[in-house]
């Protein structure tokens, strides 16, 4: 088995044994309660409410896991010194880092897929049927997973050179800033100096564009999501993660462990 997969497998096992997936119980309870309450509504908006609520919960729960577990992936290993014995094996530091990343993304995939299935069950309970058009919800769930993957990469990178608390703050801050990239690009430029214009233009392309992943409105209303956006978001996530993880690997490869 590849060394990256060995680390990934163990990271997944760690998440399972540390009861990270217990959040699914909370999500299930939320979906059951929502389905029962929304089921009483007869204004043709029950699907919209259900989908919006479900996708928001999947996103929020996923974000909490991605940020907190993502930051702890490396920093916990350094603090507890579990890394010392691992790095004495024929394993490169970047392989370890990539293994941890893959393991957490695998955990989030399982978690998000389970929550997505829960959402479909709740929709079925409310509508008594699942239509072909509902597959757009699947795309929204996929976009959430892509977003979480990028958040994990950022959290890992920050945790490679700063304290866990600062890494959480930096990741959270970058996530919030990344939600407003579109607004940053459409700022009224006439009131700015050319330098400021350039600065904001560059910044808007450097920041991770988390707004791209938000298709909750389209999913709730059953509007189709263009295939080109799916391809764009997939490639964007892959490229951005590759850059962020490369930076993380360079920093981590030169880091003195305590």
């Amino acid at each position, binding site marked *: 088995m590849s060394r990256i997969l060995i680390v990934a497998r163990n990271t997944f096992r760690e998440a399972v044994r540390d009861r990270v997936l217990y959040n699914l119980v909370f999500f299930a309870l939320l979906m059951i309660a929502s389905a029962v309450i929304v089921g009483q509504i007869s204004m043709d908006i029950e699907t919209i409410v259900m989908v919006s609520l479900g996708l928001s919960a999947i996103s929020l729960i996923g974000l909490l896991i991605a940020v907190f577990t993502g930051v702890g992936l490396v920093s916990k290993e350094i603090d507890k010194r579990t890394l010392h014995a691992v790095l*004495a094996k024929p394993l490169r530091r970047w392989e370890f880092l990539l293994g941890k990343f893959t393991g957490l993304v695998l955990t989030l995939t399982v978690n998000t897929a389970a929550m997505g299935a829960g959402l479909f069950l709740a929709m079925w309970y409310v509508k008594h049927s699942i239509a072909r058009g509902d597959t757009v919800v699947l795309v929204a769930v996929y976009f959430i997973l892509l977003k979480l993957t990028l958040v994990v990469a950022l959290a890992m990178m920050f945790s490679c050179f700063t304290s866990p608390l600062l890494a959480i703050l930096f990741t959270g801050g970058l996530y919030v800033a990344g939600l407003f990239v579109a607004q940053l690009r459409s700022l009224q430029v006439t009131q700015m100096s050319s330098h400021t214009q350039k600065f904001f233009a560059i910044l808007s392309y450097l920041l991770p564009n988390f707004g791209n992943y938000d298709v909750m409105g389209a999913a709730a209303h059953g509007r189709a999501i263009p295939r080109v956006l799916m391809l764009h978001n997939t490639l964007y996530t892959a490229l951005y993660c590759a850059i962020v993880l490369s930076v993380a690997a360079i920093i981590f490869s030169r880091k003195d462990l305590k």
Partner: protein
Amino acid sequence: MTAPAIETQNLTKEYPYGFLHLKRKTSLENLTMEVADGEVFGLLGPNGAGKSTTIKLLMGIIFPTAGNAQILGKPVSDVSMRRDIGYLPEQPYFYDYLTAAEVLHYFARFHGFSAAERKERVQKMLQKVGLETAGRIQLRKFSKGMLQRVGLAQAILHDPKLVILDEPMSGLDPVGRREVRDIILELKNAGKTILFSTHILPDAETLCDRVGVIAGGQLRGVGAPGSIVGVKSLGMEIVFELTGSGPQFEAIRAKAAKSGANYRMNAGEAELYAVLAELREGGAKIISVTQIKPTLEDFFMELVGKDRSRAAAIEVSGQ
């Protein structure tokens, strides 16, 4: 001639400290040493001397400020060389959500063993370190001594050519220490090269072919435990029995020290026979005559003492 198993040249490690990291503290200074193939080498020194820093530098856990090191003829940055190295960190920590067997399986996977071979090796190692009945218990329930045993098992699981052990006896009870000592001797007999750090001097005297003493980040001496302290005799110790009473007995008792039911007296080598004759005339029964040699502990304490007095002098002079 076989290349040394470990070789360092002017290995130096400085740590920045202070608010802006502008000040620097030297943990290890110009360490140049060699550990020969098949040798058991003990790295001795008090806490904070630089032993663990040396080992961490060798294992690539930290990076040198200056100098370089080779293990088995390859630079320490070469990951492939780690196939032939076993390492026990100081106060080892492992994933506490795993069982002892799972931890060993996890580490064994990095060496590419087949499932059957892995299973066999893990079983064998658990048995070797006395954990065969605790293999299915999560490490969070393990004592410090048990974790040390797991650490030792993972270090030798893949039958490495070189074993590096950082304070292997730490946290162990006398039985555990004896078992670890036996494992080190077993590895030595199998022709493995062993480097271990310790501040338990009798262990070093028993196990090591050579020792290196580190104090204040500097290597102060290297050699066989006997030769490093010098072969010069410090005199002779005579143990004798003295049961009679009277002025002649009292005169001898006044010169001797009581040692249990017997008496002890030190004499220079030149005056030994005269003292023995005097004792015999005084009615003493000689039990033993032993040459007094400085121990590794004496050497160690002298070095550490010098270091402390020098540190105090620097502090007083404000340098």
